[in-house]
């Protein structure tokens, strides 16, 4: 079970930027635990949906709540890892110490999180000199150091080698087992099969499917999802 985080409710959510409608008519109810995989073609609105869920942006219409709490007020209990890790111009350890300090936690926890992601031997190295996989593990450690109820992952393994992908997945699995709610964006169907408990499939700014993972991969309902899984181009 998740650590005190209620499920997510999105009601009649639309997101517009000027004349462009990025997301339309979203009605979603996500459970309070497990791993939800958000899938869809580029431009389907996955990242914007993640930002809405995390409370980084507000919907143009509709409501986004975690339990009774509006998403914009729940951000502090959540964390996000971006596709391109945003690393501070400091050492590896200082990147983690920064969030521990921001959250009023002891800096001594830094060593625990470095050990957790296998970066203890690089603690004093400049963070921005890490390899892609190491950088993403550091971003993950920094996110986990905030002890989030919900962890949002925006394509964290895009362009990483298989070993790095598995290392990231292992850390995410451990976080999920420890009770952290995981919401994950990925284009990697194999990864989605390994990680997801349920899938939200977006096409053209609409959630065309929201089903348990097994059902999604074995019996996709929508044509868009079937084409996507079959490797056909989805626009």
């Amino acid at each position, binding site marked *: 079970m998740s650590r005190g985080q209620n499920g997510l409710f999105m009601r009649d959510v639309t997101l517009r930027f000027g004349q462009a409608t990025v997301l339309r008519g979203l009605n979603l109810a996500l459970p309070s635990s497990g791993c939800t995989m958000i899938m869809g073609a580029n431009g389907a609105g996955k990242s914007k949906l993640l930002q809405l869920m*995390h409370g*980084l942006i507000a919907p143009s219409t509709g409501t986004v709540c975690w339990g009774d709490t509006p998403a914009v007020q729940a*951000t*502090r209990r*959540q*964390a*996000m890892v*971006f596709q391109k890790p*945003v690393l*501070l*111009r*400091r050492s590896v350890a200082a990147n983690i110490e*920064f*969030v521990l300090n*921001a959250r009023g936690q002891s800096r001594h926890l830094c060593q625990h999180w470095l050990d957790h992601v296998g970066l203890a031997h690089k603690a004093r190295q*400049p*963070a*921005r*000199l890490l390899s892609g996989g190491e950088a993403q593990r550091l971003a993950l450690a920094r996110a986990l150091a*905030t002890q989030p109820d919900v962890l949002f992952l925006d394509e964290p393994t895009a362009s990483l080698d298989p070993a790095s992908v598995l290392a990231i997945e292992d850390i995410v699995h451990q976080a999920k087992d420890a009770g952290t709610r995981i919401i994950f964006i990925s284009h990697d169907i194999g990864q989605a099969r390994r990680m997801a408990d349920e899938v939200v499939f977006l096409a053209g700014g609409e959630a065309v499917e929201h089903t348990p993972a097994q059902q999604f991969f074995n019996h996709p309902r929508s044509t868009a999802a079937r084409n996507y899984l079959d490797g056909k181009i989805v626009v």
Partner: protein
Amino acid sequence: MQSIGDALHLALQLVLSGNADLVEIVLLSVRVSITASVLALIIGLPIGALVAVARFPGRSVVLVVMNALMGLPPVVVGLLVYLHLSRSGPLGFLGLLYTPTAMIIAQTILITPIVAALSRQLIEDLHAEYAPLFRSLCLTRLQTMRALLWDARYSLITVALAGFGRAVAEVGAVIIVGGNIDHLTRVMTTAIALETSKGELALALALGMILLVLALVVNGAVQAVRLGAQRQAYV
């Protein structure tokens, strides 16, 4: 009037002999300019950081004013400081006119806008990179400003150098509020102006050489620091 050759010969003799007057002028110049630079950094960096991260009505006007103030005419600043510090001025009771303190005040006023405007641009660029992470972490504005100032520290050294360069080369304002008094407020630039007007080129050339060497040494040191920082990917 000396020939250039004679003047250069005498100037070298003055420099190599460690002439007491020359040393006194150089030390006062450096003391006044460093003090003014430090004060300008203390005032200008928080202003630059605040304007970089804050969004408020009229911000674009503030940016235009900040940029325009970089070109403050030194003689106008000198005149304004003079009017305030003169015996009949509002701060005349302090008795600061024709003292090094008055020169520091004038130089601080001149270079604070340079520090604020240049640091604002640097910090705003860095903030664009960090903003998604900082929003996700729910950092306060103060935490954001502190983090950005720290992470931009190596780039901000160049800003400090620009401020020091302006201060140490400044003549218009310091001659008005300092008075170019021998053994009290005579600095390199005012001494060069005076000695040149008298046709005594040796001391003027000696001071000019020292000014150039000072600029080279400071720039070299800053460049070395920046190269070190670049190797660590901290810039």
